């Protein structure tokens, strides 16, 4: 009991430190309001262009991989919302490599707050609400257009999909950052799985080769971000023919991923503290 109490206090302490630092950055961002608005709009436009590309495609076709526009928009909006949330809250951990290189990680280590929290919160980029907002607009539009018989259970499914999706992307950001304890210039690699993963999840799995879908299910479990729950919601079968209960495993997968990411981060930090580089 005492152990778990200590852990809870630790989490509370970490969250508090995170909010403190974030609040400071938000305040500082908002002092240059015009510049913030431009950056937020740019951020929204950046992810918006991906959806515009899909609209351009659908100006020539009615279905892609057997999916209509509202269905593809649902995939697009759900994946981008999950990524947007993770990117907003934790995206800055990708700067770890440059912190190791220029030695500023040491400074975080002498402050009375968890290093992870400080790396994630430092230079909190409020402009990323742009991507999130854009994604939620697409998602909202799609949810009103797809043929779904809404029940409380399905509403919960959507909420769980978005939250566990964000957690899975957050875990990938963290794993990528932990990898940078060893390879400081490799920040781009995680982009393949986060932004690249998002680019893939926007399209129906039927578009991709079976092996790629298998990889995205069993190796890097991106399929749990939106493919499996969204296919279930739209009443479609997944191309791998997995048992039905797998569609609901998103939160479990997210929890496992987060646990793995936490271990990797700790190992990376322990390595850093014993080698100093």
């Amino acid at each position, binding site marked *: 009991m005492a152990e778990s109490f200590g852990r809870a206090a630790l989490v509370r302490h970490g969250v508090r430190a995170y909010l403190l630092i974030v609040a400071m950055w938000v305040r500082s961002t908002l002092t240059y309001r015009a510049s913030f608005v431009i950056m937020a709009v740019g951020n929204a436009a950046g992810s918006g262009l991906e959806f515009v590309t899909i609209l351009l495609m659908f100006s020539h076709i009615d279905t892609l991989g057997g999916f209509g526009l509202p269905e593809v928009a649902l995939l697009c909006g759900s994946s981008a919302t999950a990524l947007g949330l993770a990117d907003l809250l934790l995206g800055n951990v990708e700067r770890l490599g440059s912190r190791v290189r*220029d030695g500023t990680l040491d400074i975080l280590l002498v402050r009375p707050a968890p290093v992870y929290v400080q790396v994630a919160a430092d230079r909190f980029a409020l402009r990323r609400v742009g991507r999130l907002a854009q994604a939620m607009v697409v998602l909202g539009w799609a949810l009103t257009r797809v043929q779904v018989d809404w029940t409380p259970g399905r509403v919960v499914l959507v909420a769980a999909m978005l939250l566990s999706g964000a957690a899975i992307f957050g875990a990938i950001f963290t794993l990528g950052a932990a990898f940078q304890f060893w390879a400081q210039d490799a920040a781009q690699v995680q982009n393949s799985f986060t932004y690249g993963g998002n680019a893939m999840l926007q399209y129906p799995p039927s578009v991709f080769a079976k092996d790629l879908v298998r990889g995205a299910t069993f190796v890097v479990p991106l399929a749990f971000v939106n493919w499996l729950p969204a296919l279930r919601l739209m009443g479609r079968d997944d191309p791998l023919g997995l048992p039905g209960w797998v569609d609901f495993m998103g939160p479990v997968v997210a929890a496992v991923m987060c646990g793995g990411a936490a271990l990797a981060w700790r190992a990376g930090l322990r390595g850093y503290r014993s080698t100093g580089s």
Partner: protein
Amino acid sequence: MTDGTGAETPFIELDGVRKVFQVRRKAGRLRRTKHEVRAVDGISFTVGRGEMVGYIGPNGAGKSTTVKMLTGILVPSAGRIRVAGIDPSRERTGLARRMGVVFGQRTTLWWDLPLRDSYELVRRMYRVPYDTYRKNLDRCVELLDLGPLLAAPVRQLSLGQRMRGDIAAALLHDPEVLYLDEPTIGLDVISKARVRDFLREVNASLDTTVLLTTHDLTDIEQLCRRVMVIDHGRLVYDGGLAGLHEVGESERTLVVDLAREMAPIEGVPGARTVKVEGPRQWLAFPASQSAAPVVAAVAERWPLVDLSVREPDIEDVIARMYTGRAE
């Protein structure tokens, strides 16, 4: 309980501390060889509460590595460290509230935030009671002349301003111990003097334990009664500054600019000419001796245009310690 010297109540304790790094070197195109670097190779010392100690040594001697172990950034390979009875590497965040750290080369402040916001964040992160914070901040603002800087983002500050800002940030939470890693590096004379005055004041009035690493012997001369010298990861000297000069027989240098090129200056008591370059000449004399008679003797017999005195630098002192010991 403490009387300033406090050797009987050690605040910082190191016992046989080592830090070994595995370094990979390229050997040919693909092959890499591993070898060990002993950055800190068996160091033991204690520092009493309220002491102010200089920790000096050449580049790469192990100074920063020691400070990183004391602050809990690095985990020692062997040996035992206690700061206020706590093992820094195991209870890093707990100890963080009780210590202040200043790295001369990097700021601990938030680069893009105004100085005032950085302090506010320190207050909340360290949970400093508001009255304490106000008192400490006012005092730092006054003594370090920070008033005009509070609204400026840290990135816009000059090196000297930033350093003052950093030192203030390290003291807002009333730390029991303050680690300063090269606090005067790159500063101008006025900033150096201000920083030194302030550190002396803090140490005297708050009984804060201070450990400072430096390249600049003047820092040590003006601040520390005790100095430790580290070289190649080992402690080679621990004692008073005067003793260090004795051991090292260090020399100061008088640089004189004459009206024209001349033969090397000779016959000045206690000094010898070590270098001539055009009209400029360098004379070495023992650090324990006053410069005045040397200057007077030169001015009397040579056409003097300009002069300056250079303090012995730390590399010199240590080099001499070795040659002295070998003899």
